[in-house]
Structure formats: structure tokens, C-alpha cells
């Protein structure tokens, strides 16, 4: 199996996983992952800790071998290939820079291992250093760099290799908030520039939304939903996806659907759904507007003032609820605010699956 590339039937995808499973001892971490990415896509794997996203990434890198299923990168079945034969580059959460080598040698390490001619290495290192603004740091050691600089060296080391697939394992989690936004934009820019397929792991839903061409939401070792980020956000396939994406999270209210209306406790409002019977209504913070005649009453408990908006946390019909108000509207705790839903998500109360209209 280690003899080299194994060609399987091509389907144009840069990356394809079929029924990938992985178990550590008694714990099943991946329970059959199917995933496909087109050439040049930025795929973001997002989910809470323990959902299997890092293990999945390590399977892609070849640092773990799946118990079952296949992984294909380009035309090659790499399921059982060691990392060095996969032509992937990885940016680690800890950066994992080689502490005994200068930035220059860190960038060149992968190329040196591949016996790339010295002139080519020089050219690539200069090019990557220019791309990431590392020129002045080339002769420094990792310990002499700040967190942000180390992070850029880690990315540079991956880029210098010109791999056919980039892997990012929570690369921003060790940076402070301001730097995180900056580097996030940098990654997006690099992706546009390089046009190479990237797989990016994060637990941060905002990072996931802003970066992803294709968003893959993982939970408990299974893919809850995958697709273009905006589609996943607008039409979450499950209650979990709905609550995971968006901050503050979606609020849920138990409801009863009748002909053209939804009833939540004592409140009833119009809804065009073919569904009849019990259901769970999901409302994002911005899916309601303040309306003196609105059917829902929010008893405000906590108010967060953001300036451009106000988050009112409280209770609707006995259930926790968060509404996003205009920045000029700043109710006090104890106030009651009447709300009118403008968009609702419906989920099956048993399975949590989305109810299509």
C-alpha cells in the first residue's frame, strides 16, 4: 500500500472522504464521516470540543489512520499513506516551529527534506517572506518572535512547500482578539491568492462563518450539516446547527403549529408552514423586531449594550430568550418588551431535524 499513489475513479473533487471512522479504545470519535471539497475550496470544520474535528484533520494529515473508510486527496487514495507522501502542509495550534532553527530554516525545512535545489529554496523563502512580511525576521529564532509573528512563520512554512492541500488546526486560538481578526483576514487573502484547497478546523463559529466557502458542522463524531456557509446559517438542518451558529445563540420555544399559525404558550402568530402539530420554534436574535402589538413578550433580565445594538436576555413564555435590539433601545432589567417574529426556523421536537416549509 505504501508503494505510491493509488488512482481511484476521479470525480473532480480535490478531497473526498467516505465513511471515515476512528475509535480510541472504547471511545468512538468519528462515526462515519462523508465529506467532499472542490478544488480550491476553503472548507471549515466547526463544532464543540470533542466533536472529532481535530481527529478528522489528523486523519487527513496522516497523523492518525482511520479504522474504516477512505480518504482521497486529488486522484490519490491516501488512506494508508504516511504524512510525507500526502503532499499536505499543516499549521498547528501550537505553531510547532522548530526551536533550534532560524525562521529562514523553518521555512526551508520541508523543501530541504525534499532535496529541492538551494536556489529554488532561496527563491521560495524570499517569496513567502515577502507575502507574509517576514523579511526582517528571517535570521531570528522562534523564541525571539511574538505570538503573531510565530503564527505567520507557521503559515509561511506551510505555504513555502506549495502543497496540494493546506490543513489548519485552530491556528488562531493562541492569539489575542484583535490579532485574531487580523490574521483571519490574512488567511482569507492568502486563500484567494494561492487558490489551493484548505481545510480549517475551529470551534469558533464566527471564524467558521467568515472563512468558509464550505462549512462542515460536526457534532459527536458525525457531520450534522455541510454546504456553503450562508446556506448552513440560513437553513440549519438541525436544532444543534441552529444553536451553534450565530452569537448570541438561537432561542428555542416549544410551539404548536395549526392552519397558518404558531402558538407558543399564550401567544399566537401567523406562520406559513405546511407542518401541523407540535414543533420547536427557533428564533435568532435578529429574527424578531420590537413591536408594541407583537405577540411575544420578553421579560428582560440582563441587558448587554454593544453600542450599535443591544442584546436583551430574558424569558419568553417561561423559556430563555435573547433578542437583538437597535442600539438606541436600551430596556432596563425587569422591563417587558413586545416582539414580533419576522423569520422562524421550525424543528422537530423529538429528532431536532429541520421542518421544511
Amino acid at each position, binding site marked *: 500500500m505504501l508503494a505510491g499513489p493509488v488512482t481511484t475513479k476521479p470525480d473532480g473533487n480535490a478531497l473526498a472522504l467516505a465513511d471515515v471512522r476512528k475509535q480510541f479504545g472504547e471511545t468512538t470519535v468519528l462515526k462515519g464521516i462523508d465529506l467532499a471539497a472542490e478544488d480550491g475550496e476553503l472548507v471549515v470544520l466547526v463544532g464543540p470540543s470533542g466533536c472529532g474535528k481535530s481527529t478528522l484533520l489528523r486523519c487527513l*494529515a*496522516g*497523523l492518525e489512520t482511520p479504522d474504516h473508510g477512505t480518504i482521497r486527496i486529488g486522484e490519490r487514495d491516501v488512506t494508508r499513506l*504516511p*504524512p*510525507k507522501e*500526502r503532499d*499536505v*502542509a*499543516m499549521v*498547528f*495550534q*501550537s*505553531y*510547532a*516551529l*522548530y*526551536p*533550534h532553527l532560524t525562521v529562514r530554516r523553518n521555512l526551508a*525545512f*520541508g523543501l530541504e*527534506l*525534499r532535496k529541492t535545489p538551494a536556489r529554488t529554496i532561496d527563491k521560495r523563502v524570499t517569496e513567502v517572506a515577502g507575502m507574509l512580511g517576514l523579511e526582517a525576521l528571517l535570521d531570528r529564532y*522562534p*523564541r525571539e518572535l511574538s505570538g503573531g509573528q*510565530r503564527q505567520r512563520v507557521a503559515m509561511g*512554512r506551510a505555504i513555502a*512547500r506549495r502543497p496540494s492541500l493546506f*490543513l489548519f488546526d485552530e491556528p488562531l486560538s493562541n492569539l489575542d482578539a484583535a490579532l485574531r481578526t487580523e490574521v483571519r483576514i490574512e488567511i482569507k487573502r492568502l486563500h484567494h491568492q494561492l487558490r489551493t484547497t484548505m481545510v480549517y478546523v475551529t470551534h469558533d463559529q464566527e471564524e467558521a462563518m467568515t472563512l468558509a466557502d464550505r462549512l462542515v458542522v460536526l457534532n459527536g463524531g458525525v457531520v450534522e450539516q455541510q454546504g456553503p456557509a450562508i446556506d448552513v446559517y440560513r437553513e440549519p438542518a438541525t436544532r444543534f446547527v441552529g444553536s451553534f451558529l450565530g452569537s448570541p445563540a438561537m432561542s428555542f420555544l416549544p410551539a404548536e403549529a395549526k392552519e397558518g399559525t404558531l402558538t407558543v404558550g399564550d401567544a399566537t402568530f401567523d406562520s406559513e408552514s405546511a407542518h401541523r402539530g407540535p414543533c420547536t420554534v427557533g428564533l435568532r436574535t435578529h429574527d424578531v423586531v420590537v413591536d408594541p402589538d407583537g405577540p411575544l413578550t420578553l421579560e428582560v433580565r440582563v441587558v448587554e449594550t454593544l453600542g450599535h445594538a443591544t442584546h436583551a436576555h430574558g424569558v419568553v413564555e417561561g423559556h430563555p430568550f435573547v433578542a437583538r435590539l437597535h442600539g438606541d433601545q436600551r430596556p432596563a432589567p425587569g422591563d417587558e418588551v413586545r416582539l414580533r417574529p419576522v423569520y422562524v426556523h421550525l424543528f422537530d421536537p423529538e429528532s431536532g431535524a429541520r421542518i421544511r416549509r
Partner: protein
Amino acid sequence: MKVLKSLGVHAIILSAVAFALYPVLWVVSLALSPNEPPGAIPWPSDPSLDALSEVVLRQDDEGTYLFLMQTGASLLVAFATAFVAILIATPAAYALSRFRFVGKDASLSALLATQMFPGVAAAIPLYLLLDAIGLIDHLGGLVLVYATTAVPFAIFQLRGAFDGIPRDLEEAAMVDGATRLQAFRLVVLPTVRPALAVTALFAFMTAWNEFILAATFLSREEIFTLPVVLQRYVGEHRAQWGHFAAGAIVVSVPVMALFYWLQRHLVGGLTAGGVKG
């Protein structure tokens, strides 16, 4: 008040320094006054380098410079012990740090157990063993004996060092295109270099200073290690303390030189946390 405090602190420090240095100074002055031992104040009354030159330039009946031969023997044994210890302990410690295998815990306990017995306890069985393989009165035999204690110690030292290196580093190297062996050689080993230096130094010093086993297993004077040579100056019939002191100073020179040479690594080894990528 501040001045008083500073004076007090310095007085304490100075007396501590004096306490530590006094025996050393005494030995130095003893070496320089071979005829008459110095009194309470370590200062030679009649300084002379006679004892030193007699120790260093001692010849046997055939005119061979014995001390040079013995220094050579000592250096050979100590360097060989350090080399063997590092050579065997490095891969062993790495395996114990990184891999899971049957008997891992048992072998760790066994290694620890070997450290609990004084070397002398095994002197007689070791003598029989060395005799059986013809390595009595042979420097190779001595290296073998020293390695039995140096290797387990080195394994423990280095395992700790390997444990301190994040796995990410090797994994990064492997994703970058290295085999496991290359990742070990190109990334892990250079990162633990301070620990390797410290461990080698300890193995060297243990072998360099060891007396009892060397005195038991060696009988040819020309391959005596230096501690055995020194002991011979304080024999049953006469005690040449001046020569003993002169020899002791000469013996400590290589160790001091090694410490000086390795001090950068020693400091690095003490602050090993600083290597985190």
C-alpha cells in the same frame, strides 16, 4: 538601616563562601607545601611545586610516564562510559517517552530498581561475571560495569527531556516530509541537546570519580584510573598527603574544563522550558 542590612547580607554570603572554599584552599596549600602540612590558615609556609611534579612526572622502572598513562586510562573510561550511556539511553528514553508497548511500566520500574542499589553491593557478582568473560583488569570491563549504572540514570534523565518536547514538533516535521527517524534526528535530538550534554557530563563524572569498583577490578598499575592512583599515595606504610592533594587538583581540572565548556548547555538544561516553539 539599608547599609546595615546590606552588610549583614554580605557577611552571611561571605561566611558561606568561606565555608565552601576553605577545604579547597586547604588542599591547594597542602599540595604546594609537601614537606609540612599547613595549619589552620590555608597558606603554604614553604611553597614548592615538588609534589605536583613528582605526581605528574612519575615514571616506572622502564621509564614510562605512569601518570600520563593513567590519565589516559581515566579519560578513556569516562568518555567511553558517557558515550555508551548516551548511545543506548537516547533511543531507549525516546521509546519510553513516545510509544506504548507491552512491558513499558515494568521496564521503567526495573530501571528504577537498579538505581536503588549501591554499586558495591554488586561488586562480587560483577567480579565473577567479568572474570567469566575475561574482562578483569581490562578498561573495557570497567566501562561495561559503569554503563550498567550510567545507562538507567541517563534513560530517566532523557525520558524527562523527551517528555518535555511537544509531539506537535515531530508531527510538524513528518507532515513537512520527514520520516519518523528524520523527525527524531533533525528536530527532536537538536532540541534536547542541553539535556544530552548534562546527561553525558554526569555519566562522565561518575566514571571519572568512581573508586571502589575500579580498585576491585584493576590490578595493573599502568591502567589504574586516577582515583585509584590517588588512594595509593595514602597507603598503609606512609601517607604522602602533599602528593595526594597535588593529584586531587590535577584530577579535578578536566571536570572543571568540561563544566566550563558545557556551561551554556547546563544553563539551557536548567531552563529547558524556554525551548517551546
